[in-house]
């Protein structure tokens, strides 16, 4: 019953007129930015962070919830209409959705993805509301050594287990860990890797890194290979609405997609690709219309879209209860919390229940708003997609730099942004995953301080890490997850884990 009371309280916070307005603005901006080709939800959140700078934490987090879900909806619209998934989690949607759009069934494809996202998002948010307090009860017993072990699991799963090549994933992670070392050491006040530059003493800003890697890097990459691809926007023809047959074929995939997405998203393993592809292959096997797969089967849109949204809500479970971001989008959400000095985790549930539950309640509201907004406004989103590429990317870069200019208008910070852009370009070019860099930057310093605290408590005895059963188990899982891809080399592996 606690959960109901807390959720009701959260609802009371979220339905205040000002907060509803914030949610609406967030949903609108999130969809508008997310619909732009090449922009995934992580970048949407990163680009829109500065818009929330001047709001109070509650309002800003509520706007964030809207931006997050809005960015997801926008991304699937792009995947269906021009076959450029902004993120690999939309790849499965693009497979069938774009075929449907080409066959003149773009409307039903958009509708099943919108309604499926709503169904999945709602169920998964309910899951989040019930799972979170339970996990918080468990997490309060965690000592520093357990947190350190948990971060090791996240490091390994985010970078090594699900990527194309564990070596390249780990390389990305260690670049992130290196960046996390920059700045003043919190325990001794000594500067590390600052090279006498005062701006570096505060460390590397997460938003600067993320916007540089995702926005600037993506613009450079697309520009460098402009001669390769021709994007074609499919006009939305015919009816927007789903027929009775469409409904009949969609509702089961929605529910199955949710069942794949939420649990996998909630594990500290991260990534929405696995549930989306699991859902895609399941639907392909179970369908009564196997001949339509590859030519635009509605099940192939409904299932993966639901899985994608459910796993997005799932990643909020480790983020809110443990402070553990397992995807680039979750990392950006964490950056949003940190700009107010808030650290998600069991303590936040105890100290600021209004914030946490207000956020969870806003997820429900954002979901409903999207369902109402998305389909009637589809004409507007399609027009956004038609912006010519030169202006589109020029505008993206202006917005990307604006965030940094507004936060820290210094030559050093802007040079870092440009430098991270070049890094992002090279990583895309040489096929290194990008999310582990962001996760490394955020989690590296936290893992270090937890480890140092654990060792200080144990008077320097490293065996303390193995004496706690939780920590020993987690370290064991991390070790297995690290070694498994090397052992299983040659067997079919999952595709790159980019979010």
């Amino acid at each position, binding site marked *: 019953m606690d959960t109901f009371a807390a959720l009701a309280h959260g609802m009371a916070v979220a339905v205040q007129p000002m907060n509803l307005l914030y949610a609406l603005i967030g949903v609108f901006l999130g969809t508008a930015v997310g619909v732009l080709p090449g922009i995934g939800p992580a970048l949407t959140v990163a680009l829109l962070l500065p818009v929330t700078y001047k709001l109070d934490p509650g309002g800003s987090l509520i706007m964030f919830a809207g931006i997050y879900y809005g960015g997801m909806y926008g991304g699937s619209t792009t995947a269906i209409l021009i076959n450029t998934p902004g993120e690999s989690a939309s790849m499965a949607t693009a497979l069938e959705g774009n075929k449907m759009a080409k066959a003149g069934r773009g409307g039903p494809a958009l509708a099943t993805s919108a309604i499926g996202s709503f169904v999945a998002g709602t169920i998964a948010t309910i899951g989040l509301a019930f799972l979170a307090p339970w996990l918080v009860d468990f997490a309060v017993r965690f000592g520093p050594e357990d947190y350190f072990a948990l971060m090791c699991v996240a490091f390994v799963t985010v970078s090594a287990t699900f990527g194309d090549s564990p070596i390249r994933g780990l390389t990305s992670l260690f670049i992130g860990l290196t960046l996390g070392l920059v700045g003043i050491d919190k325990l001794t006040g000594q500067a590390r890797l600052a090279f006498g530059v005062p701006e570096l003493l505060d460390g590397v800003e997460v938003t600067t890194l993320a916007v540089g890697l995702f926005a600037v890097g993506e613009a450079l990459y697309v*520009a460098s290979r402009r001669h390769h691809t021709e994007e074609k926007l499919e006009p939305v023809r015919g009816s927007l609405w789903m027929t009775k047959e469409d409904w009949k074929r969609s509702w089961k995939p929605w529910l199955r997609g949710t069942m794949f997405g939420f649990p996998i998203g909630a594990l500290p393993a991260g990534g929405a690709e696995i549930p989306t592809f699991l859902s895609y292959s399941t639907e392909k096997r179970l369908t009564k219309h196997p001949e339509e797969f590859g030519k635009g089967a509605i099940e192939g849109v409904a299932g993966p879209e639901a899985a994608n949204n459910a796993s997005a809500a799932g990643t909020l479970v480790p983020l809110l209860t443990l402070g553990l971001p397992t995807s680039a989008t979750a990392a950006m959400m964490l950056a949003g919390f940190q700009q107010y000095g808030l650290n998600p985790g069991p303590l936040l549930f105890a100290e600021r229940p209004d914030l946490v539950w207000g956020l969870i309640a806003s997820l429900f509201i954002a979901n409903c708003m999207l369902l109402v907004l998305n389909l009637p406004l589809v004409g507007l989103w399609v027009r956004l997609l038609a912006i*010519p590429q030169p202006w589109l990317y*020029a505008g993206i870069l*202006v917005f990307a730099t*604006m965030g940094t200019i507004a936060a820290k208008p210094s030559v050093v910070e802007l040079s870092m942004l440009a430098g991270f852009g070049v890094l992002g370009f090279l990583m895309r070019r040489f096929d290194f995953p990008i999310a582990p860099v962001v996760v490394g930057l955020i989690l590296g310093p936290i893992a270090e301080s937890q480890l140092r605290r654990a060792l200080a408590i144990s008077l320097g005895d490293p065996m303390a890490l193995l004496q706690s059963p939780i920590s020993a188990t987690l370290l064991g899982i991390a070790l297995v997850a690290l070694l498994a891809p090397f052992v299983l080399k040659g067997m079919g592996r999952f595709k790159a884990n980019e979010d």
Partner: protein
Amino acid sequence: MTSGDPVQPPRRVDRAGIVIAALLAVLAAVLVWDARGLQSTAMYGMGPEAMPVVVATGLALLAIGNFIDALRGNLPARESADPVPVVLILVGLALLIAIIGLGGGFILATSALFVTTSAAFGRRAVLVDSIIALVMSTLIYLAFDRLLTLSLPTGPLERLL
């Protein structure tokens, strides 16, 4: 990301991969060099120099791993890339940084970036793009500076508003 026309046949020594491995090794060396200047004040457990050394060790191991991958030609195939637009965008970023650094203000700086990026993506109408850029960045400036009260850098143009 990896589909398309491969520039080189697989199973050849990949020179770019060797450079990547070398850069990782250099980064590891920089970490160790920087950590040597730190004083360990912790009575028990780890001081501030421990973590850089751990990360440096990891980087060194990964440098070896990347080196082996490069020798075996294990890197994913790459498509040909056109350097001209990349350089154009970087010039735009350099202009933006210079204009902000010299006090030229937000509108001029972002307009310069807009025009160069647009040119990098194949537009040749510099004059039209400049007008669009100036109007757009002025609107952004007004919206964010006045409505959201974010402080954006001011230059000659912003003072006229």
